[in-house]
């Protein structure tokens, strides 16, 4: 019997170029969780920068000395930071040599874009390569190359493009937060999510209200006069939503990692997909659905209670510091120390309550 030889196609299969299955995953639910947590992350970081104007940051005070035209805009860097993080995740899905190819292509395109205005190619009269007479003697001929000369045509154009590229790249200073968040959610990297939250705290720490006007003019800062301070109650209420937003972001991205890891355990090491049968996959999908629905109910209830309790704590403090009596004489109670003090008392009471209604843990005696 003649052996049938199958000819191997020269066109590589999509599986050998990119692990696209990692993007979609095996379970639509996990894909949906990633999308929801990405939206939550995008929203909360955008809102954070609305409250913490990056122009009022200490970073913005010093960065323009190094980067010309540095003017961070949350509308730009949050969106592009997220897109860059997501694109970096997609880049990691490419396999082996294709990663290198993308790096080379990117460098080549950027290099060509930047150098294009400056470089001009002047070409001589010879055909490559040509045999030409030397010293006007027909007997004496020599092979010559067509002279190619690189002339610097428009240096300013290139310098402008370099400055523009630097300016665009500078968005990553504040855009690193959505960059890491997007990468962490899609690549299932807990450290990236934790780092994005940590950077939020650092960036918030460097924020000084109206700092921009002390160093730059109103045109740069985007506002004419020092804005009227919000009342501390208004700030606190806004902070509650930011806090809840971060809880949602952390919880959903963590849930995406947790449930994906649960599904991953059925995948043998080194394979892109599990060996489960369709029936088994349906069973896993059902378990995931049950887990996630229960999780969402728990999260919804807990967020509502957290919001209510936080509002109560703030309002108790507000009530105590504004009602008639000796307690209002305390100046500290009306400020940030007062709210922290009231909260600590509240948490202490909750702790006492927890002691009595919590589960009892018996200590085993030897």
């Amino acid at each position, binding site marked *: 019997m003649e052996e049938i030889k199958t000819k191997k196609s020269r066109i590589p299969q999509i599986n050998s170029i990119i692990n696209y299955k990692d993007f979609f995953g095996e379970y639509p639910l996990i894909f949906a969780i990633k999308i929801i947590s990405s939206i939550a992350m995008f929203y909360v970081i955008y809102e954070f920068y609305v*409250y*913490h104007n990056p122009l009022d940051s200490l970073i913005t005070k010093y960065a323009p000395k190094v980067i010309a035209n540095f003017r961070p805009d949350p509308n730009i860097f949050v969106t592009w930071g997220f897109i860059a993080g997501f694109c970096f995740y997609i880049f990691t899905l490419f396999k082996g040599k294709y990663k290198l190819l993308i790096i080379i292509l990117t460098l080549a395109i950027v290099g060509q874009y930047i150098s294009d205005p400056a470089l001009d190619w002047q070409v001589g009269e010879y055909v490559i390569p040509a045999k030409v007479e030397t010293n006007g003697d027909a007997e004496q001929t020599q092979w010559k190359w067509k002279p190619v000369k690189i002339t610097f045509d428009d240096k300013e154009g290139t310098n402008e493009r370099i400055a523009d590229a630097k300016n665009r790249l500078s968005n990553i200073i504040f855009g690193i937060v959505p960059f890491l968040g997007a990468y962490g959610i899609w690549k299932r990297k807990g450290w990236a999510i*934790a780092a994005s*939250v*940590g950077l939020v*705290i650092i960036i*918030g*720490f460097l*924020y000084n209200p109206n700092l921009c006007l002390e160093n730059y003019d109103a045109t740069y800062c985007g506002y004419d006069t020092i804005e009227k301070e919000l009342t*501390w109650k208004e*700030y*606190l*209420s*806004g*902070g*509650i939503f*930011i*806090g*809840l937003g*971060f*809880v949602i972001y*952390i*919880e959903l991205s*963590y849930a995406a990692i*947790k449930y994906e890891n*649960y599904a991953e*355990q*059925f995948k043998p090491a080194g394979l892109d997909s599990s060996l489960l049968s369709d029936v088994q996959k349906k069973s896993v999908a059902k*378990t995931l659905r*049950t*887990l996630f629905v*229960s*999780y969402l109910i*728990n*999260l919804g209830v*807990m*967020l509502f*209670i*957290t*919001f209510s*309790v*936080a509002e109560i*704590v*703030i309002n108790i403090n507000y009530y105590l510091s504004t009602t008639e009596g000796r307690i209002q004489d305390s100046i500290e109670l009306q400020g*940030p*120390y007062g*709210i*922290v003090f009231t*909260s600590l008392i509240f*948490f202490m009471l*909750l*702790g006492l309550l*927890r002691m009595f*209604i*919590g*589960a009892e843990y018996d200590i085993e005696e030897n």
Partner: protein
Amino acid sequence: MWSKKAVAVAGGAIFLTLAGLIRLNYMFISAGLVMLTFVVLSSFLDVWMPNVVVRRETSSDNIFEDGSINVKFLIKNTGLGLGFVEIYDKLPPQARITKGSNYTLLYMKPWQEVSFEYSLKLSLRGHYHLGPVRMRVKDAFDLFYNEKIEESIHSFSVFPQIEILEEQVITSRAPKLLSGSMPLNLIGSGTEFYSLREFVPGDSLRSVNWKALAKKGKMMVNETVREDVMDVILLLDAREVSAVGGGRDTPLEMSCRAAATYAKQLLDERNNVALMTYGDSIKRVDLDRGEHHLFKILTSLSSVIPEGNLKLEIVLKDLLPYIPSGSPIILFSSLDDDHTISEAFTNTISRGYTITTLSPSSLDFEEKMKRIPLQPLLIARIERENMISEIRSFGMSIGDWKADEAVNTALQGG
């Protein structure tokens, strides 16, 4: 208990609050307090956590190499609480999961009973155990959990793989009182035809050959070959040197599989079988028969570990007084690193015993693992061939057993 996540969130929240105080940032203060409230409130969730009882059921207590064992977990919430439950069954490192998973995450409702299953495969003989079971009852956000280690240990043995032997290669010179299935080439009560003879008073009518009566006109009876039971001694070399190679590809593993195969065959034929292993010391499973005895031999084979370097001559000197005279001995050994083999064989044969040898070649494994250069390998092969020739010259049967051959073919041509 606090999880790492709870510590991180609470730590972050406290830091936010303090940073807010230092920087007079109300946003930080309120965001920190919200996160702290979330953690504190979550700590109350364990009040309603389920009370979970776990039971493990397994398909069998013992399996053969490459066999599968199915494990089923029954999880019951005996209380009114509800919450997330994580269950992890600890497996031996050699086990490979073939179906399902030994880890599960569940959401338990009051009085709910659920189950999950997994199958695992073990390809190497030995004694193993499943468990303990680690169980975590936790809140939805993995902030607080109660961990319980259920000391539910399920011990099981993986016996060496048994092959079906196609023919009987062992014979004995010593008949016993009880009849068995080993042909002795003597007239006796058996099933195999031997000859015809005339009927004498006392012969059973069942042995009359009616066709011969019709042909010869006189009563003829069938005579059969005597079949008897034997006392067979399986002698297994478990010295350290027998562990050359790796995983299932070692002379010791091959010897164990062969010994199990022979034990099964011989016991099925109602023989008495004893197993003796030598390495650091001599371990014995005394002569006996039956299914129960096979179990004892297989259990003993599962326990064999390579150790020591007792020489065959010393081993046989010690053992021969306890072996019934004339009983066949089957030796499973790679015959490596033992200069006493010739003397051992000479002494044993001179006392009326027969030794059949199955010798797995350790050189194949050394070559496979590329641990021996070509020149020394050739010399070692020549030495081994000389050794085998010498044993054959004693009139004893020996099988030079290659790594990829079945037990069945090992003695062919020996």
